[in-house]
């Protein structure tokens, strides 16, 4: 790499050199030149370096921006070059860009000389269009016939004037699992041809047709100021991954790569066989192949290099293939490593023994190369698929756990419940059981003091992530509109009109909000289609159901809700619950239903136990119900 520092302070030029070297990890493409934009030094620089691959920099701020961009590019697997528009006409430039980019991205060998030439040819066409008029969608004039001479001279006149002359044209290359994409970006003002430019024969050049014939896909954007050329890589469709963003780490990177990137270890004491097998696999496209000549060497390499696949000969002097497999299967980190055992034994008994001992697959010598390649691919594809699923599962599990904790924090804590119990003398207990990691149930308390507290319970339709998000929506809404001391019906009416504008169509919630007056033993509440409130005497002698019908929240803006009242008997109780208690079926498919629940409550109360009644009720319910639950269960018990 050559850094020309004309016009830059020497300290800054050094910095720039260091940064660029760092950037490429010592692999900055040859011919990349940096220079200051003053006309005389530029001309000298061009003469000095035959103007190949130029990063044009006009001031120190610009350099910083270029470097930022470059760092960004490296982090995401992209490479870039940037030129003064005029040097786009240089025949060498597309070669240097293509070579530099593919080298940086580590796929030069994979694509091979011929593809490199195609990329260079296509880039050349696009860069010429950029250099000539700044509209890459427009072909360059091909023939110097009369009509075109006018176009030519108008192009020339424009090209000799700022800002056309000093445009910056950037080329970036981005690696994806199935393709490498080059973007050519003209940072100039662009160019819209006038009708006179279009006249004349031969105007429709063949350049763009050539490009289309060479690339996998071509896209033009920004009025011809941006062109993207995608060149397909040799990747098997089945191992292709569509997500371009992958977390760091070698193994995770391998997840998104192809079977051809997986490291393979070939083990045989016969050198010629190792070489042949290695050659066959390389020829089939596998790029990371290592070899070992005996069992202990293989064992050491398996531990040191973590190969993804081992092709293992059975008959070796120090350790047999089966000995190696035994060690591999004993050790946690290698337990699932696919091992293909190759053996001269033809009998079925040996094959069965080998599979039982942990060989993933067994092949008999002499091995058919096509079959070996096929098996190798098959086993590696399976490995990659399992890895990918596991990584996905790990990520989702962690995220769901986090969300679950957040949702649990919405519910009243033990301390909050104990505080209300202590202040009012009411025994408060609650059970909460989600059917999956996240749920659509939610309940809460608000203590108004003076023996008054509010209690609400919500059940969003469905269960899982969607309804869980709705509980957060409602939580936010209720934080801004806190439950009032009285008028629960009016409160639900107001909440409903607001939530109608938030909830997507088809999603709704049942909700109950009430204010408990301890001195009066009176619960004043409103409800929107919840299961009936069960209340009565704690010895089970009197039991009744409180009316809770109403239009669920979120279904109609016009819904209004009325206040209702329950008077709890002395030494009484009240049970609020979500409909899971009524509707979750037993293994035989029976649901408890209103009557069943009432009977269950009665049987709990008639036989006093050491445990709180709610715990006994829910435990009995769980014992008769098919698990996991079909729906989220919430139950709150107030004992007077």
């Amino acid at each position, binding site marked *: 790499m050559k850094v020309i520092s004309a016009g830059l302070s020497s300290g800054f030029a050094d910095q720039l050199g260091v940064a660029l070297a760092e950037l490429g990890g010592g692999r900055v493409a040859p011919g990349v030149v940096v220079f200051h934009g003053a006309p005389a030094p530029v001309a000298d620089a061009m003469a000095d370096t035959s103007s190949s691959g130029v990063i044009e920099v006009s001031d120190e701020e610009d350099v910083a921006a270029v470097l930022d961009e470059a760092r960004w590019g490296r982090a995401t697997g992209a490479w870039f070059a940037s030129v003064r528009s005029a040097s786009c006409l240089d*025949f060498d430039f597309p070669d240097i860009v293509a070579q530099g980019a593919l080298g940086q991205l580590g796929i030069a060998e994979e694509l091979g000389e011929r593809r490199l*030439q195609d990329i260079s*040819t296509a880039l*050349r066409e696009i860069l*010429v269009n950029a250099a000539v008029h700044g509209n890459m969608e427009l072909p360059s004039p*091909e023939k*110097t016939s009369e009509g075109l001479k006018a176009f030519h001279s108008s192009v020339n006149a424009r090209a000799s004037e700022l800002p056309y002359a000093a445009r910056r044209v950037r080329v970036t290359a981005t690696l994806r699992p199935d393709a490498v994409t080059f973007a050519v970006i003209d940072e100039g003002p662009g160019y819209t041809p006038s009708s006179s430019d279009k006249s004349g024969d031969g105007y429709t*050049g*063949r350049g763009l047709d*050539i490009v289309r014939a060479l690339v996998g896909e071509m896209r033009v954007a920004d009025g011809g100021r941006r062109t993207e050329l995608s060149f397909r890589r040799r990747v098997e469709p089945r191992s292709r991954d569509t997500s371009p963003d992958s977390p760091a780490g070698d193994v995770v990177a391998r997840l998104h790569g192809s079977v051809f990137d997986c490291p393979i270890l070939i083990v045989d004491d016969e050198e010629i066989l190792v070489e042949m097998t290695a050659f066959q696999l390389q020829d089939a496209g596998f790029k990371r192949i290592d070899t070992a000549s005996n069992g202990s060497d293989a064992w050491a390499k398996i531990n040191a290099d973590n190969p993804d696949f081992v092709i293992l000969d059975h008959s070796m002097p120090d350790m047999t293939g089966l000995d190696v497999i035994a060690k591999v299967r004993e050790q946690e980190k290698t337990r699932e490593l696919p091992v293909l055992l190759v053996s001269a034994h033809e009998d079925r008994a040996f094959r069965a023994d080998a599979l039982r001992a942990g060989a993933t697959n067994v092949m008999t010598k002499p091995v058919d190369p096509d079959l070996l390649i096929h098996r190798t691919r098959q086993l590696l594809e399976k490995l990659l698929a399992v890895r990918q699923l596991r990584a996905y599962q790990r990520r989702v599990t962690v995220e769901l756990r986090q969300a679950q904790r957040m949702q649990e924090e919405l519910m009243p804590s033990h301390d909050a419940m104990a505080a209300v119990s202590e202040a009012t003398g009411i025994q408060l207990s609650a059970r909460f059981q989600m059917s999956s990691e996240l749920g659509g149930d939610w309940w809460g308390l608000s203590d108004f003091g003076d023996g008054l507290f509010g209690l609400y319970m919500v059940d969003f339709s469905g269960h899982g992530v969607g309804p869980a998000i709705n509980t957060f929506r409602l939580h936010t809404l209720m934080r801004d509109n806190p439950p009032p001391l009285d008028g629960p019906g009016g409160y639900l009416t107001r909440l409903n009109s607001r939530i109608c504008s938030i909830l997507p169509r088809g999603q709704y919630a049942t909700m109950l909000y009430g204010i408990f007056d301890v001195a009066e033993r009176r619960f004043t509440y409103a409800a929107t289609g919840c299961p009936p409130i069960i209340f009565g005497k704690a010895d089970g002698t009197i039991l009744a159901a409180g009316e809770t019908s109403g239009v669920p929240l979120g279904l109609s803006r016009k819904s209004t809700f009325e206040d209702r009242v329950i008077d709890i008997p002395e030494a009484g109780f009240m049970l609020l619950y979500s409909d899971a208690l009524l509707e979750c079926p037993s293994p035989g498919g029976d649901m408890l239903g209103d009557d069943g629940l009432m009977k269950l409550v009665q049987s709990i109360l008639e036989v006093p136990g050491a445990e709180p009644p709610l715990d006994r009720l829910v435990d009995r319910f769980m014992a008769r119900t098919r698990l996991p639950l079909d729906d989220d269960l919430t139950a709150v018990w107030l004992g007077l």
Partner: protein
Amino acid sequence: MEYTINEAGDAHEVMMQGTFGFADNVSVEQLVESLVDKRAGSVVLNLSSVEKIDSAGLGMIVLIKDEIEDSGGKFAVRGASGQVKKMLDISRFDQLMNVEG
């Protein structure tokens, strides 16, 4: 691009060298002028020493052909290899003119 012309009677072989592209307008005009002046009966463009060509270069080959044929001569290209051959193939030059190996 640089060129030399080998003459044998009224047959002319134009030996082209280097890269052939957008910037070669002027030298192509000169070449056409001198061939037409010579009243060349047949012209072969020998491309074996051309390393690279772009679409503008292809367009200029067509221009040379048109000018030669308009003045009553015969035209062919010869010896393309590598990138140049691929470009001729993609653009189906075999259907436009006589392409020799």
